[in-house]
């Protein structure tokens, strides 16, 4: 078992390297906008997974961070005329601050209570986004220019945009990876396993959870802000609670608590949505619902989780 | 359920009992018989499978196979909640007092399965602490009080076969002594008792027979009469 694990550990850098190269060449084979969407949602799901998979906190309001960052970035770039990287940073920061507010209110409870509270807070954000004129309400914040990165690189070129998104994803992913495998990550794990014990060892548990929450929110914001640039719009769908549900689905489908699972889940869901869009008409939600049910009942480990288990089993035999 | 003309003096017979938690195989073929009115103990080290034996009788393990006869009836295929109807009372090792119920509600919770259980008054006389704390939420009782409550709970139902898991755990000596008296009295009234005990000094004088478990198997059966002669061996295997 432990030898297998170390085999995993040795294979990991190889795997990441391969994926990285794949990411570099992918836009020449697959439609870049589609890839960018996968990367944005992938990052969103990874950020979410940091919280659920590694800190054991189910937030049912993560759309609030995705959407808020999207709006903030959109307004900054379109109305304040800043460069895209400033827009992205601004959106991320806004999401982080919002995450801190949510966190302070919700962190005191855990499990289902936590989920409900985050859901309700996100609802407030939704109403705000709906009513505030600057967000364009139902019409959405439209016509966000992609602008010039650092004032130099023209992002209206889809390929340039793609590499920006890819870079953002890699940075976000690296931060998450690092956070999981850091002293902070260790304590997070300990808290998840036995919270009273962690308290008795002198750790201020709420602060650790709060930091995890803020990190996750900010990274979700990073995804949201980038997404706004990609699609040149921010709309209510990104703050709606369906989006919060969707990210849970992506994570669950890909493999909760696995490092690459959320990306895989996002890829599958985004592809399904775009494929199904042409074919099944009104059955989209039913199919999404069915995937949810199947995941929960049969494939709780998710795609990546099941794969890992498979490799492990074949390794043992 | 238990009439005086019942043709089976044997209250509990377990044969070739295997039990599993998920993948792990915990009991490897347990055989034991307990006649009506007897008291036996299961001895063994931590993790030897004593609690699991009791739990398997009730069907609280992942999976079990073999045969369990209660009062001459095969019950191995029956669901847990039916076991109480066969007159089995169980005091679990983790006590399982309910926090959303008051102490008294906890006491009154299990359905009466036959007449002959103790009355609430009798129980309060036996454990005055409980009477004093009767309105308190169950889990707000102290560790020992919860232990008393768990014991009292089955005495009220009229169950004739008692499976008791570490009932002296965490109790002050004064209460342990009282429990010893209670067990003696129960035996006299014809109750059948299977005990799991760490506290050998408590169990030794009460039991008619001791089963010694190791790794999910019975490695020795020691009737009370042979006990003095086997003390050294016990000491060695169990560190008693």
């Amino acid at each position, binding site marked *: 078992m432990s030898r297998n694990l170390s085999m995993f550990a040795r294979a990991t850098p190889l795997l990441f390297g391969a994926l990285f190269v794949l990411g570099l060449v992918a836009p020449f084979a697959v439609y870049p906008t589609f890839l960018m969407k996968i990367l944005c949602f992938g990052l969103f799901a990874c950020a979410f997974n940091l919280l659920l998979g590694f800190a054991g906190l189910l937030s049912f309001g993560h759309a609030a961070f995705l959407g808020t960052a999207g709006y903030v970035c959109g307004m900054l770039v379109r109305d304040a005329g800043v460069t895209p990287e400033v827009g992205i940073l601004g959106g991320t920061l806004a999401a982080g601050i919002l995450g801190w507010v949510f966190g302070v209110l919700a962190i005191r409870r855990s499990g289902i209570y936590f989920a409900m509270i985050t859901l309700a807070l996100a609802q407030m954000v939704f109403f705000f986004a709906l009513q505030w004129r600057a967000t364009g309400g139902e019409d959405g914040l439209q016509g966000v220019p992609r602008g010039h990165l650092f004032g130099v690189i023209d992002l209206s070129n889809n390929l340039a945009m793609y590499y920006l998104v890819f870079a953002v994803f890699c940075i976000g992913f690296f931060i998450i990876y690092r956070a999981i495998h850091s002293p902070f990550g260790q304590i997070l794990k300990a808290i998840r396993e036995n919270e009273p014990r962690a*308290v008795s060892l002198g750790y201020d548990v709420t602060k650790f959870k709060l930091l995890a929450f803020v990190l996750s929110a900010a990274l979700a914001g990073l995804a949201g802000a980038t997404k706004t640039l990609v699609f040149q719009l921010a709309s209510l769908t990104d703050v709606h609670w369906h989006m919060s549900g969707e990210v849970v689905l992506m994570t669950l489908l890909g493999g909760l608590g696995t490092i690459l699972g959320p990306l895989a889940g996002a890829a599958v869901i985004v592809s399904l949505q775009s494929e199904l869009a042409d074919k099944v008409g009104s059955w989209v939600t039913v199919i999404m619902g069915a995937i949810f049910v199947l995941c929960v009942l049969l494939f709780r480990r998710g795609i990546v989780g099941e794969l890992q288990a498979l490799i492990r089993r074949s390794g043992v035999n | 359920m238990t009439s005086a003309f019942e043709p089976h003096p044997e209250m509990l017979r377990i044969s070739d009992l295997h039990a599993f938690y998920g993948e792990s195989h915990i009991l490897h073929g347990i055989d034991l018989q307990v006649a009506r009115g007897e008291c036996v103990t299961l001895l063994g080290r931590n993790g030897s499978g004593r609690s699991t034996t009791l739990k398997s009788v009730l069907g609280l393990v992942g999976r079990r196979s073999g045969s369990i006869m209660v009062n001459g009836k095969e019950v191995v295929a029956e669901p847990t909640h039916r076991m109480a109807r066969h007159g089995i009372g169980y005091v679990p090792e983790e006590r399982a007092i309910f926090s959303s119920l008051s102490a008294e509600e906890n006491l009154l919770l299990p359905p009466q399965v036959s007449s002959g259980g103790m009355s609430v008054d009798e129980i309060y006389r036996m454990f005055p602490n409980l009477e004093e704390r009767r309105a308190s939420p169950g889990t707000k009782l102290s560790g020992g009080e919860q232990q008393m409550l768990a014991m009292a709970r089955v005495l009220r139902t009229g169950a004739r076969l008692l499976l008791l898991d570490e009932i002296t755990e965490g109790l002050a000596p004064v209460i342990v002594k009282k429990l010893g008296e209670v067990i003696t009295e129960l035996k006299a009234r014809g109750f059948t008792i299977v005990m799991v005990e760490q506290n050998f000094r*408590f169990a030794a004088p009460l039991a008619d027979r001791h089963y010694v478990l190791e790794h999910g198997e019975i490695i020795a059966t020691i009737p009370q009469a042979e006990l003095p002669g086997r003390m050294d061996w016990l000491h060695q295997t169990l560190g008693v």
Partner: protein
Amino acid sequence: MSEFILETSGLTKEFKGFAAVSGVDLRVRRGHIHALIGPNGAGKTTVFNLLTKFLPPTAGTIHFEGRDITHEAPAATARRGLVRSFQISATFPNLTVLENVRIGLQRKLGTGFHFWRSEKSLDVLNDRAMALLESVDLGRFADTVTGEMPYGRKRALEIATTLALEPTMMLLDEPTQGMGHEDIDRVVALIRKVSENRTILMVEHNLSVVANLCDRITVLTRGSVLAEGSYGEVSKNPKVLEAYVGSDDMNDAHH
């Protein structure tokens, strides 16, 4: 430095009018192993909860190392060096034994919030962690996943983790509960070992353990102190014998 490391005065806790602890003046001498015994429901666990701030007292004060800690947060008290163990064993089941101890050691490193730092930065703690594990005889289990270990060893691990905090004083609630005799002996030896240059306050029903280990004993009944003294003194006190042992020979109460 006062000779008493921990002092309470008039410590009281009421639950809806029921006084679980009333007016307890407890003084624990530095370096002692001090036992808190008493019949069930006497208020021992409640006293522990008060000392470690898991419950706020209704009245009274707690001084630890001369400082008033009555209104401190639990984690702050723990950082001061007053650390408890739980009645049920408290480990991190999916971490390895070594990692468990490291969680305890990590706090002093002060990098708890450093999410940008590599895990490898924790390796500096490994030697110290191994040493702690050796001290409780767990060295060869360092890479075992904790959940798979037997009860007695988990208990030992818990103590090792607690020691990692270098507590000046440890509170142990029924440390031998649910253990076979072999494990009890192991834990008794362990407690004796770790009691060197620290203070221990323990709740225990197993009187042979108490007799064996403790320098001083406080007997609680109904929330108040009934008697205090060495084992020899307390075991002859007729009030104690009546309230706690239920017979006139303390030895009856040994397991």
